[in-house]
């Protein structure tokens, strides 16, 4: 752990700092909201930023700051679940494909390649249109997992393929280790750093895709996310009314959060590739 902080590149620190700010905003602050910011007319309408309402209020009488904390919470939650599940499934199936080989490898590889070719967004739009114009967040999450596990799986499979030929794997094999133990103890350390980088990246993709669906009004109307906030603001003419803080706060949050996530994921990838080189 100590060496981690000494050798971690600057971009990793900056990224972790940015992400931490938003995680704190989204994870802790919603508990302190004076009232549910989704409910209309809990605040005076169309206020500019002030001491009472830090980011002003919407034309529906919602406090933008508290709405933003709720949106951050939901978007981050979705991203974490999508990133976590995709990475776990991807690493598991990638290892299975690369390590087992044969027909299992061929079938899994086909599914990876096929799913990578299908653009996610049109599928989400189609489902939203068919199921009454809006998709609940869990459904969006499931679809995103289905389309995102192939990225880590392909990479892990490639690593596992080269690993099979390495000397130390053979040593472990001949000394009577079980396949599962070899996977966990010998191969997994090699892909751990890269999987972490991929996890962060998938969090970003998850949040980004949900926001894309939301910005055109096809995501859940019951939950605030960063994307739905933008949709509401545009839909209620925040731009024409010159209320740039209402639109700007979710937009700026997405930009800063994504830069933070990208810095963390590329910093982690740099670190793990530096370590692989030194082995």
């Amino acid at each position, binding site marked *: 752990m100590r060496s981690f902080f000494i050798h971690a590149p600057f*971009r990793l620190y900056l990224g972790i700092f940015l992400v931490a700010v938003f995680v704190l905003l989204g994870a802790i602050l919603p508990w302190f909201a004076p009232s549910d910011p989704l409910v209309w007319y809990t605040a005076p309408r169309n206020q500019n930023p002030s001491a009472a309402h830090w980011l002003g209020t919407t034309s529906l009488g919602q406090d933008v700051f508290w709405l933003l904390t709720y949106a951050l919470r939901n978007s981050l939650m979705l991203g974490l679940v999508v990133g976590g599940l995709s990475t776990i499934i991807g690493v598991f199936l990638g290892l299975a494909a690369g390590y087992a080989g044969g027909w299992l490898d061929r079938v899994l590889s*086909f599914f990876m*390649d*096929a799913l*990578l*070719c*299908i*653009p*996610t*967004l*049109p*599928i989400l*739009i*189609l*489902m*939203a*249109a*068919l*199921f*009454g*114009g809006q998709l609940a967040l869990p459904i969006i999450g499931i679809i995103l997992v289905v389309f995102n596990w192939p990225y880590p799986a392909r990479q892990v499979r490639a690593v596992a393929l080269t690993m099979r030929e390495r000397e130390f794997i053979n040593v472990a094999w001949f000394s009577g280790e079980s396949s599962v133990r070899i996977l966990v103890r010998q191969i997994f350390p090699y892909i751990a750093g890269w999987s972490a980088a991929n996890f962060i990246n998938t969090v*970003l993709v998850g949040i*980004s*895709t949900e*926001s*894309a669906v939301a*910005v*055109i009004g*096809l995501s859940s109307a019951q939950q605030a996310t960063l994307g739905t906030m*933008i949709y509401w603001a545009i839909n209620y003419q925040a*731009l*024409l009314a*010159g209320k*740039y803080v209402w*639109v*700007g706060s979710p*937009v700026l949050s*997405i*930009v800063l959060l*994504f*830069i933070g*996530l*990208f*810095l963390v994921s*590329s910093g982690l990838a740099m670190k793990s590739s530096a370590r692989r080189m030194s082995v």
Partner: protein
Amino acid sequence: MNLLRYIAGRLVVYALVIVFALTVLFFVPRLGPTDPVEAMLAKVSSQGAYMDAAQVDMLRQSLADTFGLNGTLLEQYWAFIKRIVFTADFGPSLSMYPMPVMELIRNALPWTFGLLLTSTLIAWVLGNFVGLLSGWRPTRKSSRIMEGIAICLYPIPYYILALILSILFSYVWKIFPLTTTIRGAPWSWDLVTSIVWNSFLPAMSIVIVVFGWWVISVKAQTTALREEEFVRYAKLKGLSDGRILSRYVLPNAILPQITFLALQIGLMFNGSLITEILFDYPGVGLLIYSAVLQGDFNLLMGTISLSIIAVATATMVIDLIYPLIDPRIRHR
């Protein structure tokens, strides 16, 4: 011979991918808890169109036809695949009846292709140039600043950038038009300027993000290549920096990015859809959106099937071309 085998193998995978994608599309409407026919009917009647019971029944029947809900599941599936693969027929548009869906798509495709192609090309040229220069002298201050800018631009989704650009340049400073309105007679200079003027912001939102990516990756490649023996040899030979960069470093730096481009096409397409919707740009994205708003199922199925086929085809074409332009790859 081996190249032929590679091509044949790739084509088989391509065909399988298309069938797989269409299978997904076939089952999506059947997975949900709601009946798509009833949902569409609700959508149509909520548009304010008054229909008596007999008309509703007729519409229900024709919707069941277009959804292919008659017969057993296997028959439905076969009919669906057959219709798309062999006749490329998606029926008439329901909202712009009796205009065929294919014709609407044919009108929209050049816009999307034009937007994506031009912006990718511009970003490619700019990104390579800046990436090469800053990778060649990685310790210079200007190189560091360029990389910092690229790192901040790349993770931003296209549609967010599109929003920022339209807020800045259409609302705050009213320079560019808010929505796309193309004017001018066909083949006139007016038309060309109008298209360029209206496409500028949507294109910029794609250019900036793709530019960020190219700078990051070309810079990393170039910095690594500087240490290679053949580059050192070229230096010792006394070649100028410009010549080393353009003839020795550039080809080696950009080739690996082409495979990445193949993986990225889907994401770029996703992004351009939302950008088109935000700018009212008359491409496939806007067509999909209007299909959703008007409950036009035929149009929706047609645009989405074709966009998936287009992305899969583009990916395959890049995969096929890559070994031809990279002499280091031999198919043994």
